[in-house]
């Protein structure tokens, strides 16, 4: 039962909430060596199934995904590198097909975001703590009863 058309996608979308329903195991592929098998597995997990809502080639039962897996297998057997295989698909389908966004001018901000956020956080923390540490007066003692919720050292209780 091949149903690859866009109408299918639309129909599925119309079925509300979940639109990746053909979840069943994929016809297994055996590569000649464990190393190739591992590369194959890694590759098929990294590509998006173009007809599905949010699935990798590894988990997609649609026949286009099967064709793509076959293509990947053939390229691996022909001695292509992972990067060559990725480039092959990106050249035809665009970066959309990769679950890992590339580090290029247009997407650099995405990869830099976590670091930048963390740096902003670190600077703010340093600023806040410096300011607050200066506010700790000599009258502030460790024996501030109101602060003890009992989690302090045993000194309080022994």
């Amino acid at each position, binding site marked *: 039962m091949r149903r690859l058309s866009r109408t299918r996608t639309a129909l599925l979308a119309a079925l509300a909430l979940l*639109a990746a329903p053909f979840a069943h*195991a994929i016809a297994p592929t055996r590569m000649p060596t464990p190393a190739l098998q591992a590369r194959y597995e890694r590759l098929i997990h990294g590509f998006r199934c173009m007809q599905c809502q949010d699935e990798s080639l590894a988990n997609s039962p649609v026949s286009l995904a099967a064709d793509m897996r076959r293509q990947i297998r053939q390229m691996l057997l022909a001695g292509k590198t992972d990067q060559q295989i990725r480039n092959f698909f990106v050249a035809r389908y665009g970066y959309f097909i990769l679950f890992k966004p590339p580090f290029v001018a247009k997407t650099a901000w995405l990869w830099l975001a976590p670091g930048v956020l963390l740096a902003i956080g670190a600077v703010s923390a340093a600023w806040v703590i410096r300011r607050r540490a200066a506010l*700790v007066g000599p009258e502030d003692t460790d024996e501030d009863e109101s602060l003890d919720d*009992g989690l302090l*050292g045993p000194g309080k209780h022994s």
Partner: protein
Amino acid sequence: MIPELGQFALILALLLAGLQALFGIAGPALGRDRWTAAVVPAVAGQFVMVATAMGCLVTSFIDNDFTVRYVAENSNSALPLFYRVAGVWGAHSGSLLLWIFLLACWTLAAAFGTLRLPRNFAARVLGVLGAVSFGFLLYTVVTSNPFLRLDPPWADGMGLNPLLQDPGLAAHPPLLYTGYVGLSVAFAFAGAALLEGRLDREWARWTRPWATSAWAFLTCGIALGSWWAYYTLGWGGFWFWDPVENASFMPWLMGTALIHSLAVTEKRGLFKSWTLLLAVLGFSLSLVGTFLVRSGVLISVHSFVSSPGRGEFLLTFLGIMIGAALALYAWRAPKMQSEAGFELSARESFLLFNNILLVTACGTVFAGEMAPIISNALGLGKLSVGPPYFDPTFLISMLPLLALVPLGMHARWKRGGFGDRGRTLLIVLAASALIGCAAAFGLYTGAGVLSAVGMTLGVWIIISSLIDPIARLRRRIAIPRAVLGMTIAHIGLGIFVFALTSVQGFTAEQDVAMRTGMSAPDGGYSFQFQGTQPVHGPDYGGVEARVIVTRDGKPVAVMYPQKRTYWVQHMIITHSAIFINHGSNILVALGQDLGDGRWSFRLQVRPLVLYIWIAALIMAAGGIIAITDRRYRIAQSAAEEEASAALAGGEAR
């Protein structure tokens, strides 16, 4: 007749919510006591109307009233009663009504919970909640009315999406929404403080139970969703960094930051404006999540079908609501300064790190979530952001966060330091590293450094959480509920980290083809395929395979993975078989018929995966225990005294 009644109730609820917002916000502002006094009746009325509307929709589903479009689209006469009820929230309009119903429940609870708080403050809280209800009710009535009739009616309904015909999923939206919506109460408390322009430690004490309970529900909801995805989506994954999962995860991260920040505000009167901001952002993110799921801007396995007007409406509502709150924040927050101090090694500092790291993590997820939308919107081409982005970037903030948890738990307030806990902590850290490495390299083969680090962190958090309770037990000192709750939640976190590391590092998974009688090994087990037989369900038919699982020649389980065809929807669904053996989940999914007696299977052995969900439940339980602490009840009676004093001779306690 019943759908019309529901529709009528919905419109009345809209009007009452509008009054609730008007009285609650304008009453105290203009000093009109009669307005202020009318808020609680408006809340009660709105609740009754929303409950009526909800009851009408449920009745239409139970009665198979296919003259109602929403019922016809999401139910079917062959559907068992249980799923007919669950079908209410099976699609957009009904789930929105569920959302509104839960909001009405929370509002009612907040009305009771704030009875003893100062009158004006309580009215403002309910007023803000009224504004939220008003927005959602208007949204439902204008764009997503579930009571629209069909003319002519259909002979039978289209049925419920088979993937949703599952007890786990039936319970998932109510739980998740309870958490989502619960954040609106914390938001309303923040809104009331902003409207009043005053925030003290009492405020934090009043807000904490609400924030914590919403967080606990959210935790359970996310865990249940993940469990559901694991066993119904058929291929044994439990977290995909799917846009919709992220939409529920972001408010959770923000909520987690909020409950920690509230602790500092309550104890020290510090981080006031920051806590307010977190309360606003937590709810904002649940609104943004709702928008993302329902507006059709993203591609996800879970998203609802969208129609154009819905997105615009939600975005406008979101912009007005959050914009107003943040504008108020920009105006009021600078005046909410505190002059209290603390040292670098004080608990305040660690909670600050906690907040910064959680917000960074949330920001990272948000960046990944928004990137495809931004890229598309700015014409930079289409982009996918999946696990290869989220996994590593999320760890950047999570690893330090987890490492710091035990230090934060044992640092002293204000002047800092660990007292004589310092040595104990060092010993625990060394022991954890030993146990972690032993577990990673000893129990499993092929462990990586990250596995050892993850297991060490998990053990480090679990053991150090126990230091204080053990010390108390030895000295026969009572453990306050708040401390007990925190301890339990942190132990849950430790178990979670340990289990997740184990699953990530040591899952064995493969797709195999087997002929009847053939066996395949996976993860130390052997799987023998013994043939297929037909199965018949109420609204589906299909095949079922018999697979015998053995370990070292000894039988472990007989498993029956199914492949079902749902007639009504013409959908083929894999119903995988799961067996739990010594903490490992064995999953067998039946794939395609490859011809001449061969079938494809997915075999998966995930060690400790069950503990991921159990750990989440433990965390949630910790939260619930913490809010039963005496201090919150005392806080309320104290506030009551203050309130009655203000009323000059109000009722005595």
